[in-house]
Structure formats: structure tokens, C-alpha cells
């Protein structure tokens, strides 16, 4: 199987940078997601990998062979990749069978063998028996599976997927998500998946590349990305987080006390940060525990708002200095609006960001 090496890749459209100096090494057999808000350059990256676009700088290398560079681009038809589009791109004038068999016909596979391969693939994506139907008579989810089958039947080394689930309704999305993951495990094909949905990325990926304004922010496992975001942008994009202005006090031996309003936390000190430095403290809502007020030294806050979400309750807590904290707590504890509560923050799951938002906390 094949690894993808992207080195110093840049692409501009009419002067506007879409991707800037992107370097990324994707290992074989991995499910890798390019994640970011719209306009972050993830789709451009995918189209560069597919060979639809020519890079302005840098190179893309697959299995030790340079496929894209500013000098030459191997055209899409000679890359042996598959691609699944957001709008499925299933050909409306061909039946399901004709759609799927297209790539095999191009490879001059004997008719009988091709038929068997297509039937097997249709069964794999739960479309057995629908070969004679036209796409217009299929549901969105079924069309998406036709697109998948069409890409997979030619056994590509790499499958590129551009927001393939975003046009499906929530229930179907959930189901296709687990089908996709299972399919990737079973086939061992390297999946490069583009999405703006962080939950989808977390659920599917072995590795996530978070992109922002054309640049790579962080590349790592879902656990690393969520638990140890490289900067404020990543932290903010990956789920909810409280970002509190804070100050370093009493730095000593690699750790320091961090003061954010009335909160005092002992955290490991990022390199290059000295006593008195202004930083930003990132606190996930689930890293805050609430208890009835009473203990003498506990920080206290006032419940301003409570929203019951079924599996948990979400609170907005106002601290003494006016800082507001978003907190998620188990649903059974029930603190009323106006109640005073004691607050305990799990320092181990907190992160420090310098104000520029680029420094990583160890």
C-alpha cells in the first residue's frame, strides 16, 4: 500500500492563497481527515492530490513517485486513485450497473469477470439487485453508495472523499459513517477524507489534519487534537472550550501557577513562557466539576443559566470577577439558576496558549 507525502505545497487562485506551504505525511492504510471551516483549503488540497489542480509550489509524492509539482502533473486518469464527491456525481444517464462497471470497462476487464466484480461490490455497499435502476430513482444515501462502489470497484490504492456525507440527513449520515469506517478497515485502502464536521472527523479518523486559512494547524490522532490542541484556533474548532485570559505566577521547575480570575491552577509550563506572562487558559466544559458550595478554600460561582440536554446538563457559571464559564455536568446533579456552587477544574486536561495562539502546551 501507498503512502502520500505532501511537501511544501502551495496553491493560489487569482492571487488569493488557497493552500500555503502544506507539508503532510500520510501513512498507508490510514483513514486521514482534512478538517477545517469552509475556505480553509481542505478541498483544494484534495483536488491537488487528485491531480485536478497544478500546484504553484511544492510536490505530492505517492509511493515514492512524484505525481504533482509545478513543472508537471500526472493527470487524474493515470493516478489510480478513486474520488467520491459531495454531490455524488453519479451519472444520471447510466444505470447503477453502468456507473459501477465504467472503470472496469476502461481497464478492459473481460465482461464476465467485470460483472462478478460489480455484483460483489454492489452487495458490499448494500445495493444488491439495484443494478438496473437509474440514479434518479434512488435515495441520496443509495446514490452515495453507488459513487462509493464506482470508486472502489477498480481497487484504487487511495480513495479521496470530499464531504461525502454532508448532503445526507442526520440519521443516514450516522449509519454511512460506520459503514465507511468498516469499509476502510476491510479494504485497507488509504482514505483521505475532507469534512468541516469535527464530530465526523473524530469518529472516523486515524489521523486528523486541522487546516485554517490554507495552513496546516495540527496533524495528529483525534485524541491529541482534542486533548492537546496546538493552538487556540484548533482548540476553538474542536468542540466547546472556555478561553480565559490568564497570567503566569510563581513559575518554578517546569511548572507554574496560572491565575485566571479567581481560578488558581498548577500547570506544566510551556517553553519560553516566563513569570508574569499573559496567556490564555483553555478549559473544556467537561473538565469543570460542580459541587454544593461549602468547602472553605473552593472557588465559588453563581449559576446564571441551566440547560437540560438529557444526557447532561449545561450551565453558565459567573465567577466572582465576572468571568463566565461554560460547564457540562452529569444530568443527575441539578443546580438551580441563582444557586452558588463550588468549582473544581481538572488541571491535567487544561491547556495554555500564548496570546498569538501558536504555542503548544506539553
Amino acid at each position, binding site marked *: 500500500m501507498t503512502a502520500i507525502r505532501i511537501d511544501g505545497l502551495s496553491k493560489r487562485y487569482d492571487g488569493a492563497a488557497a493552500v500555503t506551504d502544506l507539508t503532510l505525511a500520510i501513512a498507508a492504510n490510514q483513514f486521514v481527515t482534512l478538517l477545517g471551516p469552509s475556505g480553509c483549503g481542505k478541498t483544494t488540497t484534495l483536488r491537488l492530490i*487528485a491531480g*485536478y489542480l497544478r500546484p504553484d509550489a511544492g510536490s505530492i509524492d505517492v509511493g515514492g513517485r512524484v505525481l504533482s509539482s509545478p513543472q508537471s502533473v500526472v*493527470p*487524474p*486518469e*493515470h*493516478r*489510480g*486513485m*478513486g*474520488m467520491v*464527491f*459531495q*454531490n455524488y*456525481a453519479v*451519472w*444520471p*444517464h447510466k444505470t447503477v450497473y453502468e456507473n459501477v462497471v*465504467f*472503470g472496469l470497462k*476502461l*481497464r478492459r476487464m473481460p465482461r464476465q469477470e467485470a460483472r462478478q466484480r460489480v455484483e460483489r461490490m454492489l452487495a458490499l455497499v448494500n445495493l444488491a439487485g439495484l443494478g438496473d435502476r*437509474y*440514479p*434518479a*430513482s434512488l435515495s441520496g444515501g443509495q446514490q452515495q453508495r453507488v*459513487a462509493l462502489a*464506482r*470508486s472502489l470497484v*477498480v481497487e484504487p490504492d487511495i480513495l479521496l472523499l470530499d464531504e461525502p456525507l454532508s448532503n445526507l440527513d442526520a440519521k443516514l449520515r450516522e449509519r454511512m459513517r460506520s459503514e465507511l469506517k468498516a469499509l476502510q478497515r476491510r479494504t485497507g485502502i488509504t482514505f483521505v477524507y475532507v469534512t468541516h464536521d469535527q464530530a465526523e472527523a473524530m469518529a472516523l479518523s486515524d489521523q486528523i489534519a486541522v487546516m485554517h486559512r490554507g495552513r496546516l494547524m495540527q496533524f495528529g490522532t483525534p485524541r491529541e487534537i482534542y486533548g492537546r490542541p496546538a493552538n487556540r484556533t484548533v482548540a476553538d474548532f474542536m468542540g466547546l472550550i472556555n478561553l480565559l485570559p490568564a497570567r503566569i505566577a510563581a513559575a518554578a521547575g517546569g511548572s507554574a501557577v496560572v491565575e485566571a480570575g479567581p481560578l488558581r491552577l498548577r500547570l506544566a509550563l510551556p517553553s519560553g513562557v516566563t513569570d508574569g506572562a499573559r496567556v490564555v487558559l483553555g478549559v473544556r466544559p467537561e473538565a469543570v466539576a460542580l459541587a454544593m458550595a461549602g468547602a472553605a478554600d473552593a472557588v465559588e460561582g453563581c449559576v446564571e443559566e441551566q440547560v437540560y440536554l438529557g444526557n447532561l446538563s449545561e450551565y453558565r457559571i459567573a465567577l466572582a470577577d465576572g468571568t463566565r464559564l461554560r460547564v457540562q455536568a452529569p444530568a443527575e446533579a441539578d443546580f438551580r439558576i441563582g444557586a452558588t456552587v463550588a468549582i473544581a477544574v481538572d488541571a491535567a486536561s487544561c491547556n495554555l496558549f500564548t496570546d498569538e495562539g501558536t504555542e503548544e502546551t506539553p
Partner: protein
Amino acid sequence: MAGAILALVILILLPVLTLLWSSFAGSAGLTLGHFARAFSHRLYLEALLNSLILGSWTALISVLIGVPLAWAVSRTDLPAKGFVRLTATLSYLSPPFLLAIAYVNLFGPNAGIINDFMRNVLDAPALTFNIFSMAGLVVVTVPHTYPFVYLLVASALRSVDAGYEESAEILGAGRIRTALFVTMPLVAPAILSGALIAFVNAIALFGSQAIVGMPARIFTLPTRIYALFDYPPQYGIASALSLVFVAITVGALTLQRAYLARRSYITLAGKGVNAAPMRLGALRWVVLGFVVVVFVAAVLLPYGALLAVSLSKSWGLAFWRNLTFANYHFVLFDYDPTRRAIVNSLILAAAAATLAALLGAVVGWIDLRTETPGRRFLDYVALVPLGLPGIVMAVALIEFWLRMPVPLYGTLAILLLAYWARYLPLGVRAANAALRQVDPSLEESARCLGAGWGRTLTEITLPLIRPGLFAGWLLIFVPAIQELSASILLFSSNSITLAVAVYNLYETGALEAVAALAIINMVIIGAAILLANRIGGGGAAERAGVSG
């Protein structure tokens, strides 16, 4: 791709450049002499002035007819809306030069049957109308041009939110007041845009201006340019006059684009939700009466007259006493050019439609699907013929091919080039619209599976844009079969076309035979439309049926 570029260069770029060159070329180098003459000599100034007068009157009356019809169809509970649409369609499809011939039979100063009736039966010479006049020219031109206003305004009205009108009514404005002071201003850009299109189309028509204008010594730009080709041809002044003609056309079309662009803010403002249509009450009969008058004047009267003339031995008040098919026999079997003209026109129209649709598809594809440098320029060149009236296109082709070593002048080939170039913009537009319907990802996924661009084009793109291309083909075929403005300068006895045959026969004064040929002409056009609709419509419907 190289073929497409070569085709554009030969079809359009070189002829237009030759036209430009020869308008400045004198016996001793470059000169402004031709333009100086065009703007100082009475003959040419008159032609220019007459064209502007004709265009302005036609545009104004087209608005007065097209706007009420559009309003009635899209905003009111007028009964028989299908009849309004039919009237507009038939008016548009009927060839203007046939209409002119029909009106000559009705309102010719001496032989016109209605004038005869007024003078000799009613004894009311004051009620006669001389068709050989500027007013007559406007009358025979308007039926061809008001449908442009009607179509543009009707589509604009459909996108105006009924809320605008309802809020005027709830404030106490009556129906007419609402229509005049709320609805009409909202679609003013569409009205102006339609008026300019009517203007451009009106001044470009050679046939009606020759048939109705020349006997009255009313020369316009097309007829004056035509006269300049009488022996000895005056190429320099003809080219200069052609360029003036192009300048007027392009100027009007540029204005029109600007107005049309402004229409968008209306469609953005409203959601296009239409409440119940306005109730006309007793007014509906007035509106309906108006539609009937238009139908009678533009369709029933002229074609009824042509039919009657074609069946009569000698046209006049007592024509019904001696009905005969002799005229049909004459034009079909005795008049030599007829059958050749029919065959030529069918071949030319089919070939031009096919070539223009194909070249249009290639140009559209290069523009929308490739990164070829200069692809925008290619697109512009393909649209240049929009600014060239038919006769100007003919002048450009003649001057270019006379300079070439290939003897093309007088052959069917030069006519084919003229038609191909003239109707190329229609082909480009059809292909553009069709290609925009096809998401690029449909082609990209074929590439990704290993299909090269040729395979992608034949297996994916062409099948998907086929219905759109066919619609474009039809859009070209129908006007091409009745083309006169360019053919009149380019034909020879071997390459005569249907419209030219009608025109030449008319010149000989055989009114009854001309009418018969005109009716045959109409039958061919009608049959072509029906047949094409059957083939195209059937195929398209079948496809839509299978794929949803």
C-alpha cells in the same frame, strides 16, 4: 481545439478584419474618405436616418403591444392565456418578408384589396392606407419584434413578488394604478431591454425594408448597402456604411445588457411568490379584444391574404370567383429555381445548425471546462456575429473571400459559412446553458476512474448535454431556413435559397405565384418545426422518463 480556433478565425475574425480594412483602404493607402462620404452624402445620411426612425418607431410600438400582453398573461386572470402565447409565437416565427408581401397584397396603393374595398365599395378613400411608406414599414416589422418585449417582460413579471402589488392595493391603489405605477416601474429594465432588442432586430431586416421601403424610395442601411453592390460595386463605402451599422447595433446591445443586468435586483428582493392573479372583471374583454386585434393583424389577415392570393387567378375584390391551384403548379413545376431553392435551404439550414451547435459546444467546453489561456477571448469572438446584421456579415464574407485564391463567391459554401457564423452565437449559448447544467464533478469522476478527456467527452459530457444541444440546433434551423438578409448578397443561380427565390419572384411582379411560393415556404417551416419537435421532444421526454 485547434480546429475550433481555426474555424473562428476563418468564419469571423478574418472577414471582420477585412471589412475593417476595406472601410479604411483607399487607392493610395489608408483614408477616412469612405466614412467622410457616408456621413456627408445625402443618400447615406438618409439611409442612416431612416433606419433610426424605423427602429425607434418599431421599438415603441413593440413596447405598447408586448407589455400589456406580458402583464395580462403573467399577472391577471385573463382567459385564454394559451391564445396569447400562441399569437406571440406565431408572430415571431412568421418570416417578416412574407408578412411584407402579404401586406402589399392588402394595402398596396392600387392593387391592395382593402384599399380597393375602401375606395370602390365603401367609397371612402380617406380610409385607404399606403403600405409603401414609413408607417407601412413599421406595420410589417412590429409583428416580428414585439414578441421580444413580450418574452422579456413576461419573464421579469413572473419574478416580481406579488407582495409589492398587494401592498399598493391595500394602501388604496386601484388595479390599473397599481399596474402602471408599481408593477411597470419594477420591470422597467426588462421593458427597455426588450425595446432595444426590438430596435436591433427591426433595423437588421432586409426583406421587409426592400419590399415595402424601396418602392417608396425609403432606403435604409440594409437596402442602401444592397444597392451599393449593383454594378460597379462600391466596396469602400459599403464597408464604411456596414461599420456604422455595426456600431449602432453593438451600441444598442451594450445598453441592453446593462439594463438586463439591472433586472437582477428585483428578483433578489422578492421570493417570487405569486398570490392569486389580479381579477380583471369587465376589463378582461378589453384586454382579450386587444389580443384578438394583434392576432388578426399579425397572423390571420396576412396569412389569410397570402392563402387567398395564392389560390386566385387574378388578385382583386372578385378573386373568389376563379379559384385555382395553377399558381402552386407553376411555382413547383414550371418555375425553375423553386425545387433547387428548397433543397438548398434544407441542406444549408441542417448543415449550419449542426456546425454551429458543434462549434458552439467546443467553444463552450473550452471556456467552461479548461484552463486554456485566452478562452474568454474565444468566447467573445464567437459572440461577435450578434453585432453583425445579416447583410453586413455578407459584405464581410464577400470582401474576404474575393481576396482569397479560393473561388468561393457564388457557391453554396459561402452561404454555409455565412449561416454558420451568423448562428454561431445561438449555438454557443445553447452549449453554455447545457454545460452549466452538468456539474464538473460528473466529468472529474470519469477522469479519476481512468478515462482520458476524449472518452470523458463522448461517454459523459456529450450524452448529458445532448438535449440542450438539440434545442440549440432547432433554434438555429428554423431561422436559417428562411434566411434572407445575408443570402441576398451571396446567392447565385445555383446556390439560390428559398427566401431569395420568393424575393426574386416578387421582383418580377407575379403576386399570385409569389403567394403560392410563400405558402409553400410556410408549410416547409411548419413541417420542419413539427418534425424537429417530434424527434427532439420525443427523445428528450424518453430520457427524462428513465432518469427522472
